[in-house]
């Protein structure tokens, strides 16, 4: 699997990564190498094998429906890049 620079750009956009034009070539090469490498998987017969998303075969534990958290807005917003009136600010969102 060989990725073109355009494909890399598309993936980078989907992942919201602003990649510099001069870096595209390196990414295209290394990503292609990695995809080539992982293609070894194709040789394995996985017919009927259940995918394994978790290392342990356990079920989800359930929490009691009780509010336990208190307001920590000031504490959390101390580290925020831009806030006003308790809101996080972002460049204008157009719907």
């Amino acid at each position, binding site marked *: 699997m060989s990725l073109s620079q355009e494909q890399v750009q598309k993936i980078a956009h*989907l992942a*919201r990564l602003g990649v510099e034009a001069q870096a595209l070539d390196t990414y295209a090469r290394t990503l292609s190498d990695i995809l080539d490498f992982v293609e070894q998987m194709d040789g394995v017969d996985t017919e009927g094998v259940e995918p394994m*998303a*978790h290392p342990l075969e*356990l*079920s*989800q*534990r*359930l*929490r*009691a*429906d*009780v*509010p*336990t*958290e208190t*307001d*920590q*807005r000031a504490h*959390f*917003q101390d580290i925020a890049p*831009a806030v*006003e*009136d*308790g*809101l*996080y*600010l*972002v*460049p*204008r*969102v*157009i*719907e």
Partner: protein
Amino acid sequence: MEWETVIGLEIHAQLSTQSKIFSGASTAYGAEPNTQACAVDLGLPGVLPVLNREAVRMAVKFGLAIGAPIAPRSIFARKNYFYPDLPKGYQISQYELPVVGRGQVDIELEDGQTRTIGVTRAHLEEDAGKSLHEDYHGMTGVDLNRAGTPLLEIVSEPDMRSAREAVAYMKKIHALVRYLEICDGNMQEGSFRCDANVSVRRKGTEKFGTRTEIKNLNSFRFLERAIHFEVERQIDILEGGGAVVQETRLFDPDKGETRSMRSKEEANDYRYFPDPDLLPLDIEPAFIEQVRGSLPELPDEKKHRFMNDHGLSAYDAGVLTASREMAEYFEQVAAAVEGQAKLAANWVMGELTGALNRESREITDSPVSAEALGGLLRRIQDNTISGKIAKEVFEAMWAGEGDADQVIEGKGLKQITDTGAIEQVIDQVIADNPSQLEQYRSGKDKLFGFFVGQVMKRTGGKANPAQVNDLLKQKLS
């Protein structure tokens, strides 16, 4: 050319849990921005989700109510996309294995027909926060209080063929979630909202047309208007030789039109995959049975009971069970006038609903309680007042002038049932209208009504109408 509309709805019902679906933050509405967004809701580095048992219970409740299978194992998946109101860059939802499988609901149309609408699935997911577009120096403000509120997304089959059917279906689901007490149904606060998938196709064809998705409709009226507009728009395009573009659209209630959403322009690739922070949700049969045991009487069951026990028509029973509150109100009134459920039904659907609608009030804050209305109807039942006077009494009760007995007493509206007194008035009326008497006796039967009217007028409407009828018939013959 005849067109057929095809509609499917994705309803989002906020589950009325105390805390969020994956965190211990409160879900109470209306708090100051970001004061109910805890570390998990903010997606701080290193935080993890733990599932709320009550949200699961509520989803199961809904599934049982629509006759759907409950998945013994369901999986939470991540839906990946970037948006400022989505703190983690993904929404935890269910994709391949939802908790509630295929079910169905019946809707009644105004012509009395019933249609069955398929519910494809219902799944648990987390709500996003809110973007506030007021101007902050050209910036948008983000409030994450709502982020992580549990949602049940209820996906219908494309089974609806008109805006009316879509509205009837949405109302049915609305009633259902409120009966089940799993959602407060408050549409203004966004607790109950839907996305509508709309397409048109030529009548008689099987293949669906290209659909558009109208996002975030939070009233029945908007749903209806948005579909009407969208259907017209699509037909115009197709008849003009164009093609409908599959896209996400937004309804503007002020303009009454839908428009393409710029922010959703790009084709989304959500890259769903199982959330590795959450394990499979296994629901034991015992849990399901426990929930089944807690189910209240559902709208359709209630409707049939009203028809069987109270002898109501399907239409009346349908109207009265449209909301749990209305049904409960009716049942209280009906209990006060045993054997006269139809009287109770007429009053609840007539005077009461009319008055509520006039003032845009909910039945839960009606100035006339079910108990008070029952008291009024008892006075009709025991002949203290006539039905007509009762309307006057009702108005006074609505205006806060006291209960039925107080109003009747205070205004002297008690019905005249003394035969002698009524006869006296009849005699006077006959004496005062000789020419009408003659015409009546010469065969003009219609004038009977004139005499009733005159008697009622002279008694201030208080004479018992049945007695007036009987006595007049005797005297006039």
